[in-house]
């Protein structure tokens, strides 16, 4: 069975593995607070509070298991006329964005991303349905990709 997510003669570029950290740290913080609160209450008030602690713990464990796989599944490939973006483990998707359809490119980096040396490149077409973002790029690679996409977009711009 051929997979639609493995087109022939495409070499995929992978994103930085540091993206795993960048995604796990916020999840650990948001889930860690109720976990610790539940554990503290379980020790001091009643062992029933282990239920409160167990739920975020389970989600955290699941996240810790899924995120590395998600990051590993992320990939992009620059072809001559379009950009391919692949993502997802359970729900997979492959998006093809022609350079000529690109309206603008965003490069974003939050405080944690900057500390880890990561940036997100997002492409926008005239369609809101286009979900074309590449998170977890090293800043140099993000800047190179942005400039390259912008120059290619201009060269192939043809209205809408």
């Amino acid at each position: 069975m051929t997979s639609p997510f493995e087109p022939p003669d495409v070499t995929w570029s992978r994103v930085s593995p540091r993206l795993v950290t960048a995604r796990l740290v916020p999840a650990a913080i948001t889930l860690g607070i109720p976990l610790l609160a539940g554990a503290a209450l379980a020790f001091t008030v009643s062992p029933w509070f282990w239920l409160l602690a167990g739920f975020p713990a389970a989600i955290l464990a699941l996240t810790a298991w899924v995120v590395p796989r998600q990051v590993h599944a992320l990939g992009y490939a620059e072809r001559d006329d379009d950009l391919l973006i692949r993502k997802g483990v359970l729900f997979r998707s492959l998006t093809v964005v022609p350079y000529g359809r690109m309206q603008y490119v965003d490069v974003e980096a939050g405080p944690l991303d900057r500390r880890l040396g990561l940036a997100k490149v997002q492409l926008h077409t005239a369609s809101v349905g286009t979900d074309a973002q590449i998170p977890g790029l090293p800043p140099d690679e993000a800047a190179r990709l942005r400039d390259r996409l912008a120059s290619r977009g201009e060269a192939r711009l043809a209205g809408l």
Partner: protein
Amino acid sequence: MTTPAAEDLAWRRVHPITPVVRGWTILAAALFVVGQQSIDDSARGGGIVELLRSDFWWIVPAAIVLVALVGFGYAAVAWRMTSYAVGEDTVHMRKGVLFRTQRHARLDRVQAVDIRQPLVARLFGLCELTLEVAGGSDSGIAIGFLRDGDARALRGELLARAAGLKAHRTGEPLPDVGARPPADAPLPAGADGPVDTAQAADHVPGVVHPGEPTADQGFAPELLERPGLLEAPEQSVLTVPPARLIVSLLRSGAAIFTFVFVVALVVLVITTGRIGIAFSVLPALLGGGGYLFNRFTGEFDFRVAISADGIRLRHGLLETRAQTIPPGRVQAVSLTQGLLWRGPDWWRVQVNVAGYGDKNETNAVLLPVGTREDALAVLSLVLPELGVDEPRALLDEGLEGDSSSAGRFVGSPRRARILDPVSWRRHGFSVTGRALLLRRGRLVRALDVVPHERTQSLAVTQGPWQRRLGLATFTVHSTPGPVSPAAPHLDAADAARLLDEQALRARSARAAAGPERWMETS
């Protein structure tokens, strides 16, 4: 050709009655509130009525005069500060009293030009012209209100400039539509190199060469005085009779739902004897009724015409709207048929146009209801050439066919029935030389048509069940609007091949697509 500096532009003002037309709702609301207050207060023996009887009665008329003066003063200033200008290939708009905004729109980026006439504006013979450009909601330029004739002349001027006609059309009307390139058709061959003046003049009678002294001086004032002169001549394609619109609305899901709701309500009220139930569900009923009423008034007297400047739509009962969608601006088309429209074989045609967005559905309708012939005629305005032998047979297959009979559509495999037991037979796609056809829906049939050069981006998605069954969903991303083309649950290999080939086809179609300025030959 350079854009003239802002100082060189001839700034024009909108009609002085504009504040009245825009502000009447506020005025009505204010009067309503004051009226209600005074009635309430007079019942309790106080308020305005009491004040009028006292020695200070003059406060009331004085307050009214003051409010009126301030209101009209502000409106007058706002009107004075609002002006617009049409440049060589841009439109400029200045407005705002405290917070000034100035907006420039490039005419070659225009997606649609609409003239809207709300009920109150109609009393004064005024309309508002909206120039839609692709840039999300609230991206267009609304120039209003203008006198009827002025608005039409301005539309003609904008479209002529957007089409790339460097000089004005002379007063002589064009002989017929056929003399100019048909809408959305590939432009004549041999159009490479610099524009041949003689050839251009042959194609478009009434165009003066830019080198001549009359050219590039803007449009002569007398042309603006006489409406319709600048406009490209149009050919009527079809009209929707009011009776058919009413019947089609009665056969729509919303009407059936409302009817069943009313019947159930009446039964409930009679059996329980409690009238209070009726009031508690009134909002839901008003919602259904309001939707039908809006559909009826918005799509009343729907007329479709074609001109060299694109598709012309006119419709509306209370608020009338005249839309012009230039060639190549329709991003996707869908033909849909509800269950109860199947008997008379009626179809509804909707489009995605970049400037319209999905905020209001009424302006994205190309045909509210029509027979199959009507719907296909309207489709052919958008896409005259399907690029396939026997286009009619293919379209019929797309409209009502399914995978139980062999055809030119590639459908979902049989194993997709677990995921979509109802309509898996209808899912499918077909590729022609000019467009991608996607059919779906068994109860509500739909056929989406996306011209290859209008594809924004493409995607293939696959969920866990689909992966187990070897299926994948193919999606075409189009600009915001009522059409969201997709082919669910295709065979994974078909989806992969379609994604790859469609990316290629879209690329080559874009390279061969006509220019943004549809009358330009280069």
